[in-house]
Every structure is written in C-alpha cells, then in structure tokens.
C-alpha cells in the first residue's frame, strides 16, 4: 500500500464562534484563484500498438487529439520505443486545462522487448528532475508541472492473464507513477470472460505485489459506496469510439457491428464511464496530489540522499541526515566543527600552559638552587672573613701587648744600665 501522508493532528485550543466571522468563504476564495490560475494534467498511455489508445484518449476528452493534422503514433512506424508528448489546451465551464498526453509508440512491438520500459522510466524521471531543479533554484519563477500524473496501462484482451511484459512494466513503474491498468478493446470479451479475466489480473497483480493507484478513503458515505463499486470493477475494461451512432433514436458514441452496437457510455457494455468519471471528474486532483506528495517526494529524497550521504555511510547517520535539510546538515557540521576547534584549542592551550609552567618552575628551581648555593658561598666567605678578622685582631692585640712588654723591658734594661752606670761612676764598679 502506497503510504499517504497523514495530516498533522495538533492539540490546539478550540474556540467556538459566537457570530459571523466570514472565513467560511475561504473555499470560494480558493475556487476563484484556482480558476484564474488554470489547471494542468499530464496523462501517459502505454501499451502495444493497436490496442486503441489514441481512440480512447479522443473518447475521454471528446476531442480529436490525434487527427489528420496531428497523426497519432499508431500511424507512424517506429523502430524503437519513443516517448512523445502532445500538449493541448481545453476549456470548459470557464475552467482552463492544459492537457499533456504522453504516448509511447513502439512499446512492446519489437521481437525483443527487454528494457522497452526504460525510455518510459527515463521520461518520468526526467520530468521529476526538471521539477526538482526548478524547485531548487535560488530564483524561482513559475514552475510548470510537467510531471506525469497518471499512467494508463493497456492490457491486451487475451482473456487469460497478464503477459510477462505487463507484469514487468507495472512492477517497474508502480513506485514512480500512478498506474491504472485497463483492459483494452473490451468489446471482444463477453461479460463472463471479462469477469474471469479481471479476477485473474487482480490476482496476478497482488501476487507480484504491484501497487496500482488506490482510491483514497473518504468520510462521506456516498462517496465510499461509489469507491467500493469502482474497486470491484478493477481493472476497468474499456471501449473507445468517437463515432456517433443512432441507437433507438438516441445519439450515442459506439462501435457498430453487424450484431449490434457496443456503446461506449453504457455501463453494462464497458467501464468507460467509470474511467472517465474517476479520472477526470472526481479524482484528477487526487492523482496530482499523490504524484506530488508521494511519487515525486520519493524521487527527490532518493536523488538528494545520493548526493549528501555519498552512499555507503553507516545507516544510523544517514537516517539522521535524512530528516535534516542539507543546509541544516552543513550548519550542524559547522557547529560541531566549531566545538571541536574550541575543544582542541582549550586542550592545546592547557598543554601549552602546563609545559610553560613546568619549564618556568624548573627555571625557578634552578634559580633558587643557584641562589642558595651563592648565598652559602657568600656566608662561607663571610665566616672566613670574620675568622680572619678575629685572628688579626687577636694577633694585633698580642702584638701590641708584646710590644708594650718589650718596651717595658727595654725601659727596664735602660734603667738598669743607667743604674749600673751610676754605680760604676760611684766606684762601686771595679
């Protein structure tokens, strides 16, 4: 089941209006603006040649999309699968619609049809790419929406089941575009054969897990009943014709056979009306919304993930990155880096400071050591000086004492010799 995005449910205060406000007119404002803008729709038809694709388109839109002047692809001989688009402008009831029909002539017509779906995939992707680029520009201007909104896949009315090509194609495209399988030229099947055929096809679709376009659930009971009815008739068996034939006095579009007229718009003859109503009158907008909200978003996220995650990174990180825009991602990285730098800076600063402190301490220590040694030597020297001084003083004292003594002795001697002289003179000396 293709996931449809859920509307956000927020718990916000409710308020009751006590009188007229006027925003009930909003839908009219939206209506008015949308009519002014106009609408666009791109429809792709895929199927082998001769399945009545062009006729069906003409029948659906009641116009000669393919006419003498603009011949349909079936009238052109193709060697390889081409993808061609025709753009027409149609107006109805004041509403303007730019309709693009994309044809795939040559699909399934070759002997070897391997990869015949590739041009189709390429086309769808390239339209998504265009839109992505337009959306990503700095200067955004009008963004025309050329994305493929719906792909009608024509199944040949073999009555048996899906062909391998059918399965292969639908499997490859169901996640890129809204696929609506149709049984072409249903007027070659009887109602019973048609029933069986439809059952078989749906069984095979489920078996191969192909996700065809699903109708959204509505709250409206009427609509729900209608939708259930449509679902029961899938895949729709269609008949196309723009030839008007008179049946019982009524002018109808149909195919005239010898045995009767197969009416295009007769619900008992085929599901054309169902298809038209569903495709154009009730679900055209939803087809566009699903294309925009689901298929395009898938394309976009795949594309951008490839760029920013550079593939092959561990999944937990990529998951985180997916929920962030690349710009936010860069901002985050920048912030992380700033923090890292800051941390690095503080670390380096710390180491630096520490080393400087160490070195300074060392220097201080050696200075202190030298200082100490010097002090000690100084003290030592001073002590020696003092000692010397003391010795000198002592010596000086001794010397002066001795000298004093000597002087006394000298004096005595002198006195003694003087006395002797005196005694000699006195005759005491002989």
């Amino acid at each position, binding site marked *: 089941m293709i996931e449809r995005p859920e509307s956000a449910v927020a718990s916000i205060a409710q308020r009751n209006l006590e009188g007229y406000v006027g925003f009930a007119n909003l839908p009219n404002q939206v209506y008015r603006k949308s009519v002014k803008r106009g609408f666009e729709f791109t429809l792709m038809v895929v199927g082998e040649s001769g399945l009545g694709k062009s006729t069906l388109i003409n029948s659906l839109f009641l116009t000669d999309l393919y006419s003498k002047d603009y011949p349909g692809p079936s009238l052109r001989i193709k060697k390889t699968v081409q993808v061609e688009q025709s753009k027409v402008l149609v107006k109805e009831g004041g509403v303007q619609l730019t309709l693009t029909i994309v044809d795939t002539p040559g699909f399934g017509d070759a002997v070897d049809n391997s990869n015949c779906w590739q041009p189709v995939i390429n086309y769808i992707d390239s339209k998504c790419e265009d839109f992505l680029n337009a959306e990503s520009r700095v200067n955004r201007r009008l963004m025309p929406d050329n994305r493929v909104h719906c792909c009608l896949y024509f199944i040949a009315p073999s009555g048996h089941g899906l062909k391998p090509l059918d399965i292969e194609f639908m499997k490859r495209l169901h996640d890129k575009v809204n696929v609506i399988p149709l049984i072409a030229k249903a007027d070659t099947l009887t109602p019973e054969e048609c029933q069986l055929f439809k059952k078989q096809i749906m069984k095979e679709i489920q078996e191969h897990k192909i996700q065809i376009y699903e109708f959204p659930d509505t709250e409206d009971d009427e609509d729900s009943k209608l939708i259930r009815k449509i679902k029961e008739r899938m895949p729709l068996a269609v008949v196309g014709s723009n030839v008007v034939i008179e049946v019982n006095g009524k002018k109808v579009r149909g195919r005239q056979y010898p045995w009767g007229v197969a009416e295009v718009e007769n619900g008992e003859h085929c599901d054309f009306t169902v298809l038209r109503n569903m495709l154009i009158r009730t679900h055209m907008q939803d087809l566009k919304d699903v294309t925009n909200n689901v298929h395009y978003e898938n394309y976009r996220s795949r594309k951008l993930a490839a760029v920013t995650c550079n593939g092959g990174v561990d999944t937990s990180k990529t998951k985180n990155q997916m929920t962030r825009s690349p710009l936010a991602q860069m901002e985050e990285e920048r912030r992380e880096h700033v923090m890292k730098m800051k941390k690095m800076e503080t670390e380096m600063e710390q180491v630096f400071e520490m080393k400087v402190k160490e070195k300074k301490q060392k220097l201080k220590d050696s200075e202190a050591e030298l200082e100490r040694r010097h002090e000690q030597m100084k003290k030592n020297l001073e002590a020696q*000086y003092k000692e010397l001084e003391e010795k000198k003083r002592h010596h000086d004292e001794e010397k002066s004492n001795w000298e004093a003594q000597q002087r006394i002795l000298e004096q005595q001697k002198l006195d003694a010799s003087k006395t002797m002289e005196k005694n000699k003179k006195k005759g005491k000396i002989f």
Partner: protein
Amino acid sequence: YNGTCLAKKGEGARAVPLAGHVGFDSMPDQLVNKSVNHGFCFNILCVGETGLGKSTLMDTLFNTKFEGEPTQHNQPGVQLKSNTYELQESNVRLKLTVVNTVGFGDQINKEDSYKSIVEFIDTQFEAYLQEELKIKRTLHSYHDTRIHACLYFIAPTGHSLKSLDLVTMKKLDSKVNIIPIIAKSDAISKSELTKFKIKITSELVSNGVQIYQFPTDDETVAEINSTMNGHLPFAVVGSTEEVKIGNKMVKARQYPWGTVQVENENHCDFVKLREMLIRVNMEDLREQTHTRHYELYRRCKLEEMGFKDTDPDCKPFSLQETYEAKRNEFMGDLQKKEEEMRQMFVQRVKEKEAELKEAEKELHEKFDRLKKLHQDEKKKLEDKKKSLDDELNGFKQKKTAAELLQSQAQQAGGSTTLKRDKERKK
C-alpha cells in the same frame, strides 16, 4: 530555451475544441474539497503599543474570546506571544494563530523594538525553509507558521505617524503583508479622521513604506478591493460587549454621549476590515506571503550561503552539483581553519621556548657573574690571609729573636752579676 521556463500556462499547447461535456470543470471543486478536508491555516501578527486594543480587536474580529491578560507597561523588551486556535465556521475548519507584540513601544529607548519582530518573522520563514530543504520532508502536513498578515496598530493621536511606527513598518514591509489600522478610533472625530488618514497615507508614501494592497487583478473582486484600498488605513473600534440597540444586541461601546456600534459602517471601518481581511482576501494574503515574502527570504538566505543559479538563463541547474561543491568548499574551509590554529600554536610554542631559553641563559649569565665575583672575593681573602700569615710569621720570628736576645742578655747579665759577685768575693 528561455521559452520553457517563462512559459505562461498553455504556451506551446494548441487549443482544441471539445465535442461534448468532458467534466474537468469540476477541477476547482475537487481542489476545494481537498482543501476543506485538509483544513485551512492563517497566522496574524498584531503590532502596536500596549493598550491599543489589539486583543480586543482580535476577539471582536473572530467573535470569540482568545487567551490573554492585559499586559502591563513595564516590559523590558519586546516579546512575541503566539497562540493557536481551532475555529470552525459552517464546514470550514481554520487553524488560526494570533501573535501579539508584548511591550512594544513601552521602553525609553525603542531603537531595537522592531528587531524581535523581524526575528520572529524570519524564524518562521526559516522553519519553513528548513522543512522544504529536508531530504525526507512532509510539506503536505506541515503546520505553516509564517505570518500571513500584520495588523499595524496606529495610535489615535489624530496628527501623524510616530517615528517608531515609520521605522518599524519600514523594516517589516518587505517581510510581511502590512495592513495599517487606526486603533481606538472612537477617540477621533470624523473630520479629524479624514485628515489623519490622508496624513498617514502620505507619510507612508513619502517614506517608501509598502503596505498591502488588496488585489485588483481578479474581475470578481477587483471593484470592491480597489474601493477598499482607498479607505486605508481602516479606523477600527473593538468591543466584545453587547448593547441593546432597538431590539437587537450589538457589539458596542457605550458612552454617556452615545453608543459606538462596532458593526455600523458609519461609526467605524470594522466591517470593512473584516470583509477585506477575512471574507475576501484571506487566501490572497496567504499566497502573497508564500510567493513573494517567503521567496525573497529564501533567495536572500540561499545567496547568503553562497548558492547561486549556475546560469542566468534557464539552463538546467544541478542542485546536486552545487550541494557537493558547497560541501567540499565547506570542508576545505574547516580543514584550513584547523590547520591555521595548529600553526598558530606551533608558532606560540616556538616563541615561548625561545623566551624561556633566553631567560635561562640570562640566569646562567647572572650566576656566572656572581661566581666570578665570588672567586675574586675569595682571592682577596686568600691574599689577606696570606699577608696576615706572613705578618704572624714575621712577628713570631721577631718575638722568638727578641726572646732569644733577652735570654742571652739575661745569661750575660747573670754572668756579669756572677762575675761581679765573683769579684766581690775576691
């Protein structure tokens, strides 16, 4: 290639006639149904001084009572308070967010008043931009908080706009749809009002302030919109109280001299405001916000980050390449910064090392000098010691010599005495 991008709808397509009713004229209805199912969202910002009746006007406009206590005048700065409500009218659900500026115009220095408002508006744009740029995004269910309309409340002085008003509106006009309104207009007489409106309009024009113009491009509403454009700014009165007039209860303000009826177009422009803002142009306000104001913000932001369209023409622009290039540049930048910082540190280390080495050298030199000094001192001491020793020795010698002499002399003297004594004895 120019054609594809600037293509108007339908260009390149040929018109074909339809042979009957196809049924795609239901497209607008399909679109409307989806919108109604999804619900609508509208965000109003009310800018104006405290006490101009912003909350009352909101209550009156939306016929309900919103949150809020009346604010005091002592707010330190301008703050924005936002409240979201779910309203329903007939089958239409509206998620309405009312943002109020609290404290606007109360400060003495109002130079920065507009800043928090601009910041708020930008934050909402930023949130949307971030969502839009995510890889896995959910735009469909995103609650749009971008401001769709800014009601600017002008004080009913009757003279002219205040400079704060002009400054603020000038800063906001490129970011949001501004709808100026004259608040509490029951304080102004009709003649004063006309003059006031003219003065305001001319001041806005002469200052180049772009206010929101009701669109006149759609024929269905062109007439009413252009008439209303001429009545701007709307002079409004708000009231949630009801007064009986005749046999009806109407919203009004009762004065001794009469009753001002809010919904009476002769009394004030309230009805006009409601018509224009809600009933006629709500969707256009949203559209303008998205296609004009938001796009401008987005463009500026992306250009600021260095993104640009690789080609002036519409040549396919590869988002991936730009992202990658940006990313590489960014990473290179970061690495360079890292390298620079490392280098700076290496440099500092070198310098510091040299410094310390220098200091070490000096220290050693100092101590070498001291050592030398010390050596000198030591030598001097040694010399002194030596000289003292010499002196000591000299003295000793002298002493011993003198003593020897003395002892000799004594001996001689003794012998002389002995001789004398000997002589005597004879």
